[in-house]
């Protein structure tokens, strides 16, 4: 499958550059203007003089749309998720919000048992068009504010999972998520927000992206070849796309051309693009910030190993966080998060030894 960028030339020509926060806010604003059924529900998202959510994404939206549509809640994650699911089944298109992805564990019953299963249990009679936005990634806040949670949700049938790595994808995928008739868990990486001022993140990645003025949507299930290459395929999401692209630059200096694929959505997953690339480069590695055991990368390795068995020259390697909680001390956190150096070394090893 080809990348949607090639279908939207405007993305390349416009001069406008936005941060992830700005792009996500614009997606919410456009969809709210377009469809009165879209509401926002979450903690501290619309309070006057407040934050616009934990990372400012909803700043200014209560002023435009009012508190009828930008609904501040008590600290009640289970009910936030469940009320969103119920309202979705009742004809609205809620975009719910948790301040840190880690709090999704509180909402797990409503997401995994209710939102994900209402359609199936009703014999296909109900749909639950809701989005659950959740920031992930380790940012020196320790074990309860830094987890990557994609794997928990890819495992639940009935939930879609998106994980944009840049503002352009963020906007296009969020708009698609809002229009999707299914519950979508929408992961955003704290270091990719591009938050400014007091909310700027130490170690944040400068990701300003071209975002066209014209409306566009990015379909789910279309991975993007973020960098073409012939020697090895690196599949990644969120922050790890950026680490992989940095690694690819270093590898190029050493004569190794790595192809970097940004999965963009985990459910549905673009098996074709990854399999085609793996067959071409004959070597595959997967990079994720989640804990190694049972991460989404394990699923990719298993399936691609299956369908590309005869085409691969090397074992499939996975780079992930170790099986530990997220530590607080920056020196340990650095050790925990997969590094550019590890990606380079692993790619080098696969290319040199096989």
């Amino acid at each position, binding site marked *: 499958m080809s990348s949607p960028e090639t279908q939207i030339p405007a993305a390349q020509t416009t001069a406008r550059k936005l941060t992830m926060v700005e792009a996500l806010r614009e997606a919410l604003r456009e969809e709210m203007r377009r469809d009165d059924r879209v509401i926002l529900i979450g903690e501290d998202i619309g309070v006057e*003089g407040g*934050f616009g959510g934990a990372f400012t994404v909803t700043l200014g939206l209560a002023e435009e749309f009012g508190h009828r549509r930008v609904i501040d809640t*008590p*600290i009640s994650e289970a009910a936030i998720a469940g009320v969103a699911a119920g309202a979705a089944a009742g004809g609205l298109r809620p975009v719910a919000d948790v301040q840190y992805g880690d709090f999704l564990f509180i909402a797990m019953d409503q997401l995994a048992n209710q939102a994900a299963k209402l359609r199936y249990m009703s014999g296909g009679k109900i749909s639950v068009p809701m989005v659950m936005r959740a920031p992930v990634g380790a940012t020196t806040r*320790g074990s309860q504010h830094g987890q990557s949670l994609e794997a928990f949700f890819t495992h639940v049938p009935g939930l879609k999972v998106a994980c944009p790595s840049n503002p352009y994808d963020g906007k296009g995928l969020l708009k698609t998520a809002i229009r999707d008739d299914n519950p979508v868990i929408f992961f955003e990486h704290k270091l990719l927000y591009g938050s400014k001022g007091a909310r700027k993140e130490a170690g944040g990645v400068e990701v300003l992206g071209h975002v066209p003025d014209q409306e566009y949507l990015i379909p789910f299930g279309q991975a993007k070849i973020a960098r073409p290459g012939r020697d090895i395929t690196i599949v990644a999401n969120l922050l790890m796309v950026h680490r992989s692209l940095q690694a690819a630059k270093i590898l190029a200096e050493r004569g190794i051309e790595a192809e970097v694929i940004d999965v963009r959505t985990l459910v549905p997953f673009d098996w074709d693009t990854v399999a085609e690339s793996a067959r071409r480069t004959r070597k595959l590695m997967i990079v994720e910030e989640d804990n190694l055991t049972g991460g989404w990368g394990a699923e990719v390795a298993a399936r691609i190993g299956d369908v590309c068995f005869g085409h691969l020259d090397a074992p499939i390697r996975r780079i992930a966080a170790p099986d*530990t909680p997220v*530590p607080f001390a920056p*020196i340990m956190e650095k050790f925990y998060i997969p590094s550019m150096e590890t990606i380079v070394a692993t790619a080098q090893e696969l290319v040199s030894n096989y």
Partner: protein
Amino acid sequence: MNDSNLDSKQRLAIYRRMVLCRKFEERVYYLFLEGRLPGTVHQSAGQEASAVGVCSALAEGDVITSTHRPHSHAIARGLPVKSLMAELFAKSTGCCRGKGGSMHLGDLALGMLPAIAIVGGGIPLATGQALAFQYLGKKNIAACFFGDGAANIGTFHEAINMGAIWNLPVVYICENNKYGASTSVEKVMKVEHVSTRAAAYGIPGMTIDGNDVEAVHRAMSSAAERARGGRGPTLLELETYRFSGHSRSDPGHYRPQDEVAAWKQRDPVGLYEKALTDHGVLTEEAARQISASVEKELDEAVKFAEESPSPAAEECLSDVFA
């Protein structure tokens, strides 16, 4: 102040502890601004009376649980300031060896479970600590700190009900500082007082001036006695106010200026200082000495933290399992 059972020595100890909490937060504020502390901090200046008043009524072996805003709780419980400061500096001599950070300060051996940064997450844990005390026949209690915001999450209701039906030795302490992050209490609760909810579980509930340290001490003492005597939990609501923003990045524009100013008039440290002075317990000279000794303790804590080694990166891999 006269109906309290505290003697002058105890009162001065309480006062010093409050000053230590306040000055600790002042240090942390500047260290943070200077970029010397990683991560984020949620500060508790303005809430010293609730932390110190509650902990002054505890006995050895009792356990507290805390929240994302744990600095004063830890100091009030008597954890060594050095080990707290070192934890904020992410050093291996910290109370959690650099693995926890500001939001998880604690040391169970010294009577404080690592603070829980999931709002409401500590309420079942405190209840479980109390179940263990009851089961093991210990005369100890658990004191469970949480904010007004936590009164709306499921764990609050589930755990307090369990504590109530099993008569567990636990005191639930809601520090109602009027806001959960940017959200004012009135927006998210239809009852005026969190303590009203105690009735739903059949336990006593009361609302106390949380900036009056001796009022807190008295209320906690009787709730603790009740819990220790096997008569079950109490829900104490301590009305107070945080002087700082919610976290390091919050200027607090959602709070009216006059509201902030009014609460600063009721600064718990200042109030107690005045009360003790008026009663002849504290002299100007004694106050100066206390201030100097607190500054010295903090100087030493910062020095200790700075000179302590960082953990090895590979320490990341240890402590996952017992």
